[in-house]
């Protein structure tokens, strides 16, 4: 893991789990696998705090433990997982996706499981039902069965999975990929009941509910079966969305619908790292198209051939009449589009033209670049050198003679997509880390003001609850002066902007990460 990744992981751990966990986590990330005593000594932290932090990290899947290097007798070693910590940045996106797919219930289930790392099904169902009941109107409450059905839908579509069973001490640590076959099997638990409101007015209901809860705690048979969010499945979903929207913007809505159907049909059968979807016959596609897109068979064939012929978005390989989607090429195209747009926004449209030219034509000499890009020599030179100094473009030497004489060597400009994507990914990590630091700085600067406003809000709330007169309320409100109010407003605006930016940079991070990952597994 690079320095930028470790810095970002540290900031994310600090924001979500506190400084102690951040110290331990960063130490593990930098130092590799270590045992308990080493960690405690090197970070100067008391042993019980180290144990607590390790528990938190293991609970959230950011750390694994296994037997030591010196064989089964040596102390247990802990290893932190950088990638998993970086996922924390994407939590809002996961929750929002669950909301779009499975409604509020799904959203709350995913949020609860993300907050707690691992949870049993019964616990999740109860907590979610209570939360939903709390937001509902008077007299209504949420049935457990509804929550259970949402939960089972999430499990069936592989968005939630069982945590792998804990390896015993002395044996080798189990691999992280869930090779357990019961990964997506729901436990046989019957949960009957309704969500409870946390209010004193529902006394009678709570008494009955309380009794039922006690019975349910005894009867729930799923102790030890913990569930976690299956990030890979969410990533697959995001990738599909990206491909569909790219096709929609390049071609038209109907072709994007065709692509969406193809992807949906091969959702559960395709593994995450597959380069191609399963081959589907055109007939199947025709039958699976959503009913409002009633296009006839010949038109479907035309669309399919259009998708094949499109050279840039050509992610369709079609041996006769068996269309498959080349996902790897789709990801490469998306990454390339990202790189091009980055160059365009930072260096202008003419530099972007040069960049795209080099991507298409691979290797070009100085003179050729000027000719093809139709840019005067001086400016082209300037732009090329700017790109070269930013490491987006490389020089390749091709000697004509074996002694590499400079006067008899070709110097060609070239762009390598994969290393450039890695470079941009590190820039993105650095950007997010800077954004978080700036947000923390702004909060710290205005701490006094924020605390004051919080206190006043608390006073207002308590006054309103106890039924005060309007004059008292206005008096309390006036304790914040107008310039302070303005300052608070500006502060909130800045913090919201910084937060929102982090979310959006994360979208670029996702694209680049998926592309780089897809090139690794070959």
């Amino acid at each position: 893991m690079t320095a930028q990744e470790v810095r970002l992981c540290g900031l994310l751990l600090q924001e979500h789990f506190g400084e102690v966990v951040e110290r331990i986590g960063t130490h593990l990330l930098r130092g590799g696998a270590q045992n308990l005593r080493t960690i405690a000594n090197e970070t100067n932290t008391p042993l019980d705090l180290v144990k607590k932090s390790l528990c938190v990290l293991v609970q959230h899947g950011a750390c694994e433990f296994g037997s030591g290097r010196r064989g089964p007798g040596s102390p247990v070693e802990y290893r932190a997982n950088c990638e998993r910590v970086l996922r924390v940045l994407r939590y809002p996106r996961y929750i929002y996706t669950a909301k779009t797919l499975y409604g509020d219930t799904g959203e709350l289930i995913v949020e609860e499981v993300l907050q707690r790392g691992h949870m049993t099904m019964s616990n999740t169902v109860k907590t979610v039902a209570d939360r939903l009941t709390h937001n509902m109107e008077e007299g209504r409450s949420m049935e457990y069965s509804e929550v259970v059905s949402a939960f089972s839908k999430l499990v069936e579509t592989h968005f939630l999975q069982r945590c792998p069973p804990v390896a015993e001490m002395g044996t080798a640590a189990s691999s992280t990929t869930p090779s357990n076959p019961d990964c997506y099997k729901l436990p046989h638990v019957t949960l009957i009941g309704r969500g409870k409101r946390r209010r004193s007015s529902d006394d009678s209901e709570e008494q009955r509910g309380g009794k039922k809860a006690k019975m349910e705690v005894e009867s729930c048979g799923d102790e030890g079966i913990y569930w976690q969010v299956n990030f890979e499945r969410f990533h697959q979903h995001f990738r599909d969305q990206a491909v569909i929207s790219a096709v929609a913007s390049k071609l038209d809505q109907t072709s994007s619908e065709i692509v969406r159907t193809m992807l949906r049909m091969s959702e559960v059968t395709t593994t995450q790292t597959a380069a191609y979807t399963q081959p589907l016959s055109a007939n199947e596609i025709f039958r699976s198209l959503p009913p409002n897109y009633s296009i006839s068979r010949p038109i479907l064939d035309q669309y399919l051939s259009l998708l094949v012929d499109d050279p840039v978005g050509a992610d369709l390989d079609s041996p006769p009449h068996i269309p498959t989607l080349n996902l790897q090429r789709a990801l490469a195209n998306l990454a390339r589009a990202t790189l091009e747009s980055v160059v365009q926004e930072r260096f202008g449209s003419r530099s972007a033209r040069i960049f795209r030219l080099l991507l298409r034509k691979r290797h070009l000499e100085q003179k050729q670049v000027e000719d093809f890009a139709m840019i005067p020599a001086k400016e082209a030179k300037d732009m090329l050198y700017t790109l070269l100094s930013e490491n987006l473009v490389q020089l390749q030497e091709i000697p004509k003679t074996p002694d590499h004489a400079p006067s008899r060597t070709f110097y060609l400009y070239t762009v390598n997509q994969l290393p450039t994507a890695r470079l941009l990914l590190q820039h993105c990590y650095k950007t997010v880390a800077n954004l978080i630091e700036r947000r923390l700085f702004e909060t710290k600067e205005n701490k006094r003001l924020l605390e004051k406003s919080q206190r006043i809000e608390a006073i207002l709330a308590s006054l309103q609850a106890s039924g005060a007169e309007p004059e008292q309320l206005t008096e309390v409100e006036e304790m914040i002066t107008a310039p302070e109010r303005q300052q608070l407003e500006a502060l909130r605006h800045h913090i919201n902007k910084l937060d929102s930016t982090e979310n959006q940079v994360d979208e670029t991070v996702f694209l680049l990460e998926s592309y780089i990952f897809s090139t690794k597994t070959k």
Partner: protein
Amino acid sequence: MAGLGRGRGRGKGYMSFSIEAVGIGKGENLPPSILQPTPLFPPMEHKPVPLVMGEEAEYMLALKQEFRGNMKTLPFYVRQAVSKKDTSLSVDTPVDPKPSKKTRVDKEEIIHKLETLEKKEEEVTSDEEEGEKKKQEEEQQDGEEEYDEEEFEEETDYIMSYFDNGEEFGGDSDDNMDEAIY
């Protein structure tokens, strides 16, 4: 290797490859070399793309802030309850209340010492001040006495120098008769 060749292209900007090949013509003006680190916030030539602001973005923003707030209340947020005063303690022993008492006691002693020192200083300075004041008073008194002596010698209303007959005037300069005496 041929690349080092001092016999080849002498000139001010010698590099291991020929400069024409990468496009810098002969005798052309190169941009001046940079003598300091690049500025911390360099001016941007192109304005960045504005943020996407929509319902989805705002909802995700709210989700994010809520999530962060919730995490602070969960037991997963580990807080360091005891502030470490003595970091030289080995990790295994729990932080004793005794050392903190000791340091507090030490602090009290130190404060007491400081106070006594301050008092002493004040005394010294006040002594000095008094001494100065006395001296000033004495001086004033002397001046007054002198003044009084002069006045009250013969009980006249005029100062004694009024009755000088000018004998002392010009008595010094008998040596040099060139100067005119006015």
